[in-house]
């Protein structure tokens, strides 16, 4: 049977041939994915199995590779945000803002306080949706569909807020160099208030449903545990690292967009297992809610939503039609003929899954000379085979969900 699934030169084929269990049972091969509904994305793992226990795994990635880094080398800077959307599509505003902040660092642009706070709000909303999906899908994979359906409507509510801000929902392409493309409408703030009122109630219920649930605990505690040392060696960042007990958070280590103004805790776990990852994400949602409330409270007066950088920020349309100077700026920006210094920039932000880094090399032309995305999913997914070794097949599914590997970010 195994020869049908694997070419004879594959190392697993060799292992199977050589190794026969004492009871005469043969080891077997199982292809998990690439299009299995339980893997929530396109991941293939060739599993070497003894009965239902996984002995080894070989992941294949790249099924939705779209060559973003190559495309980015051929696009003007402002056309690169749509590419960042499509990396971690569960929290695309974080990617968008990270990209704009990279450019602002490159161009030395100071963003007004109010725009920074608005960015913090939208980034924390994105973090909430990201963690919400991860945790509720983890529930689905352990057999609890209800929680998922219950909290998923709040992702819809957040997407309505995005819609009010930028017009798009999933792939937001939000913001501009120096701030936002338009001020937030009163409706956006109203929807945000409603969300802040209703969501904590639902999230509390969601927590109650899982945190002390016997079945859930049996399925997740001590499943897919990884030690802090191994996690750091594998380059883990974000909630998956914090579940092992290391309190590294880019928002605290290198505050960007005024994160230093807010008071929040960095939740950590202890054992780095699936249950801890679930709890860390849960706790982070509460911290995100608190940050959003603080940002709304501290929001400076006025309606400033972008920096005064005419070289890089598109002028209002009526000015373009009626005003020579605005027309020139408009033309230059759209054609990508803006002054860009020669520099190398690395800018990290705390994405939904960890440190999302943008390494940008410019040569003074209209496109990046080289743009590299440090994608946290890509980096920590290489620990997956080690984490599922010795686990059951059903645990492999649960571990994959709890790592929150997003195919778009994995493959870029």
């Amino acid at each position, binding site marked *: 049977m195994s020869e049908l699934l694997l070419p004879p030169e594959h190392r697993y084929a060799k292992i199977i041939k050589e190794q026969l269990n004492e009871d005469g049972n043969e080891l077997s091969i199982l292809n998990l994915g690439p299009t299995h509904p339980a893997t929530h994305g396109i991941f293939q793992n060739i599993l070497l199995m003894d009965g239902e226990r996984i002995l080894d795994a070989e992941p294949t990635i790249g099924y939705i590779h779209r*060559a973003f*880094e190559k495309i980015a080398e*051929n696009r003007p800077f402002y056309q690169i945000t749509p590419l960042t959307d499509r990396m971690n599509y569960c929290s695309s505003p974080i990617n968008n803002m990270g990209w704009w902040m990279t450019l602002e660092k490159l161009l030395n642009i100071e963003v007004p306080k109010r725009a920074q706070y608005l960015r913090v709000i939208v980034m924390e909303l994105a973090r909430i949706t990201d963690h919400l999906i991860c945790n509720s899908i983890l529930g689905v994979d352990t057999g609890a569909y209800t929680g998922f359906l219950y909290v998923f409507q709040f992702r819809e509510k957040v997407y309505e807020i995005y819609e009010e801000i930028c017009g798009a929902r999933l792939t937001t392409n939000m913001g501009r160099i120096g701030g936002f493309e338009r001020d937030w409408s009163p409706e956006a703030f109203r929807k945000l208030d409603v969300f802040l009122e209703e969501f904590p109630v639902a999230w509390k219920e969601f927590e109650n449903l899982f945190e002390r649930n016997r079945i859930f605990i049996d399925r997740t505690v001590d499943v897919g545990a990884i030690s802090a040392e191994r996690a750091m060696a*594998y*380059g883990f960042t974000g909630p998956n690292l914090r579940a092992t007990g290391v309190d590294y958070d880019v928002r605290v280590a290198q505050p960007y967009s005024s994160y230093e103004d807010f008071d929040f805790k960095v939740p950590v776990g202890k054992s780095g297992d699936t249950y801890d990852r679930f709890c860390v994400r849960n706790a982070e949602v509460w911290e995100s809610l608190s940050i959003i409330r603080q940002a709304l409270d501290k929001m400076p007066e006025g309606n400033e939503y972008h920096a005064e950088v005419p070289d890089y920020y598109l002028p209002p349309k009526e000015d373009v039609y009626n005003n020579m100077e605005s027309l020139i700026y408009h033309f230059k920006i759209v054609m990508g003929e803006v002054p860009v210094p020669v*520099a190398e920039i690395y800018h990290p932000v705390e994405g939904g899954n960890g440190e999302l*880094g943008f*390494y940008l090399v410019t040569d003074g032309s209209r496109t990046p000379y080289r743009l590299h995305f440090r994608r946290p999913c890509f980096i920590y997914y290489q620990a997956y085979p080690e984490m599922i070794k010795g686990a059951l097949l059903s645990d492999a599914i649960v571990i994959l969900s709890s790592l929150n590997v997003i195919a778009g970010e994995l493959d870029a």
Partner: protein
Amino acid sequence: MALENTAIQEKLAATFAEDVFNFQQERDIFSFEMNANNNTAIILFLKNDSELRFHFLTDLCGIHYPENPIEKQFAVVYHMHNWYENKRIRIKAFINGSTPEIKTISNIFLTSNWMERETYDFFGVNFIGHPQLKRILNMDEMISFPMRKEFPMEDGGRTDKDDRFFGRTIDNC
């Protein structure tokens, strides 16, 4: 007591002399270049030294500089991070354009395993001693290295984007 740039520079220069050079503060990151032949020793020193403690490899990627002289046409860029002092550094190692190769650091940082595979996949940089150096995002049958500058964005044989269909000729654009 924060880790100062000068302290890093002095320590490295004392140990590796000519192999580390071109130290500079680039915006918020302290960066320097290193001799590619000695990369493993330098990275290992940065990781294990009791003062420097750059224990976390944030990023590893390649860059292609076709305009450079042949011995400096590729660069491998390492971003390292010291979480204790919250200090980042960037190290660049230039390598030969015709036979790009550099020693692997996957035995020092496990995480560089896939990053090096990615760099190999896109630039064709041969990481000597890598346990499993094969393509990662592109398909195995591919013969070219797509992130090299000479690799065209689109298939040259495409006819659906022929400029003539859009009314453009060599004369009018």
